[in-house]
């Protein structure tokens, strides 16, 4: 019994130590990243970044006005991206098809900088993670965009929700 007791304490210590050191490794990345993202926001780097997402709008076959929601979602995350999409939709800047395609793409692929950096201290290959994630998400959304009629899809769905 006594050895079992000692073992339990060993296991708990191992678990706590490992958990805390995991958090520490991630804190070293997350804190500077959040500061950087705030600087990027205040420097209006988004205008610049939406220039990079313009080719993406062409590949996905969505309107050019989708460049900004794509840039925001890819960098800052789904909640921000969705917020901008809703705003653009209310202002009539995005057509139905772009709205659905951009939403699906961002649901699968968002906050790519944070997610990639989070997995590096865990032991993943960051470039491969980022590259494959972007490639697969773009490739499959392009296929959807070509072969699925999204204009009818959206109108038909809301009753189910």
């Amino acid at each position: 019994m006594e050895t079992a007791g000692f073992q339990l304490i060993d296991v708990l210590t191992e678990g706590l130590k490992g958990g805390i050191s995991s958090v520490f490794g991630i804190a070293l990345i997350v804190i500077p990243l959040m500061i950087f993202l705030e600087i990027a926001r205040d420097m209006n780097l988004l205008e610049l970044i939406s220039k990079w997402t313009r080719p993406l709008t062409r590949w996905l076959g969505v309107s050019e006005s989708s460049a900004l929601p794509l840039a925001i979602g890819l960098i800052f995350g789904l909640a921000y991206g969705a917020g901008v999409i809703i705003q653009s939709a209310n202002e009539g800047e995005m057509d139905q098809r772009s709205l659905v395609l951009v939403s699906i793409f961002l649901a699968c692929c968002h906050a790519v900088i944070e997610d990639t950096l989070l997995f590096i201290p865990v032991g993943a290959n960051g470039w491969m993670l980022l590259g494959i994630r972007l490639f697969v998400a773009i490739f499959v959304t392009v296929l959807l965009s070509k072969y699925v009629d999204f204009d009818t899809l959206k109108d038909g769905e809301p009753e189910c929700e």
Partner: protein
Amino acid sequence: MVTTDTIRRGLIKGLETVWILSKVIIPVYLVVTILKHTAVLDYIAVVFRPFMQVFGLPGEAAIVLVLGGLINIYAAIGAIMSLALTTKQITILAVMISFAHNLLVETAVSTRVGVSGRLIVGFRIALAMFGGVIINIFF
């Protein structure tokens, strides 16, 4: 304009994120470490082996996919850290989790835009499996 307030906001957001993730990572790491010393993890490993083999992953890595899918990336990270995995296996899990994580909460966000939740969840899981298989085969 970038001011000291910018830096302060970033620092607070960073600390908040670390606080949120530590509340998830530490308990998950602890629980999986305890499971490792019991028969439960071996049982999970055996049951999920056939499915996980498709992605070149050991059966116990199913825990990572379930925790990531239902809770979030941080929970998945806690589980990955507590298991013994190779760089390739961790990269495969990272890609799969990147596609399909926090599905309950994020699907609620996505449907606010008006897209079908089932469509989005199905699509994300399909992409996760597709991504996992691709890395397993080609790299």
